[in-house]
């Protein structure tokens, strides 16, 4: 995971909000570049998280044959 504690889901939601802002009535050119930089940073963080996460596979010790 990247340095922040936010989950991928939280970051994706945040990125969606940022992207929606560009189409909203709140859009202003003065803020656009800052918001764009934030979006770029979030996208890079999401990509890093997704690429580095590994599944933790564990075979349970319990036996399921008839004797147990």
């Amino acid at each position, binding site marked *: 995971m990247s340095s922040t504690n936010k989950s991928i889901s939280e970051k994706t939601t945040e990125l969606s909000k940022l992207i929606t802002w560009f189409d909203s009535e709140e859009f202003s*050119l003065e803020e656009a570049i800052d918001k764009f930089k934030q979006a770029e940073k979030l*996208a890079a963080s999401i990509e890093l998280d997704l690429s580095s*996460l590994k*599944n933790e596979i*564990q075979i*349970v010790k319990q036996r*399921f044959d008839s004797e147990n």
Partner: protein
Amino acid sequence: MEKPQIQPIFSVSDFIAVVNQTLEYAYPSVSIEGEVASFKVSQGKFVFFDIKDKGGSVGCFMSVWQLRVPIEDGMKVIVSAMPKLTQWGKFSLTVKTVRPSGEGALKKSFELLKAKLDTEGLFAPERKRQLPTLPKHIAIISSTQSAGYADFIKILNDRWGGIKVDVAHVQVQGEIAPDQMIKAIDFFNQQELLPEVIVIIRGGGSADDLAAFNDELLVRAIAGSRIPTLVGVGHETDESLCDLVADVRAATPSNAAQILVPDKNEIIRSVRVQVGSLLPRILQIIDQQKIAVSGLLISAIDSVDRAIDDQTMRVSNLKNVLSQLDPNKVLARGYALVRGVKRIGSVIEIETTNNIMKAEVKNVINK
């Protein structure tokens, strides 16, 4: 001299016991294939039928709870049983398991059980639960040596990460497979931290190979699971009762992984495309604003031009009006300007365009 051999004399009960001991030693368990005849259930507890072929017939007995698949007269089955001589001297088979044999019998048994469970509402759409969107903890019931399990894990790892995957290694084929899978379902349902979904998977095989997934008790265990279930058994065309009762059915083990988690590579591509489209959008908005400002400037200049034109026109009109008031113009139209006192005998001055004349007033009449 040879001593005469003494033959033992049994009581009837002892003889039956000895025969049963001998049978148990010689045939602790036998599998017999034949056709079911005279099938009946007594008192809702005991099952009696004969298993026969062209050359013979043997009576069979078992408990109702041991009958895991429906059978009926004429169906070809394989029984796993222990031969026994009853206290009335009748030879019979005490059946442990019975399973349909051959494609026709398997299909018939499948249809009978499907109809029964369908009547109970086990396959009803309203029973189906949704799977979690992004599970963090899942349970898998499969044989870890099977190709289906390997396919599932490969696709799962390719598509998503960060999931805790608990795997119950069980038989997914044969007589003991249903019980092992039932135990695994129970095991996961009894965990303190429940997995968010149970995935039951097995690769393709013959109808007989997949018969375990048409076991009534296994189907009921899946229906009774507190944890939502995803079943991916066999190939796309295979349909098992476990598929029908599961909350979500996957066509194959690989498809189960595709259903369970999104593809991170697609998400990465989508994120890149979305963010990549922002800068051109900003530049487009800047261009639009430039055009808007330019339009406003042109409009302002037009307004000033119009105001100047208006004022010029107004001045021109006033000049025209003023020119009409010029006395020389009136004189040019033939009028004359008279100056002096209007009294008989006084001398007045008359001015025309070209002349100035003096005249005497001869008479004054009021109009």
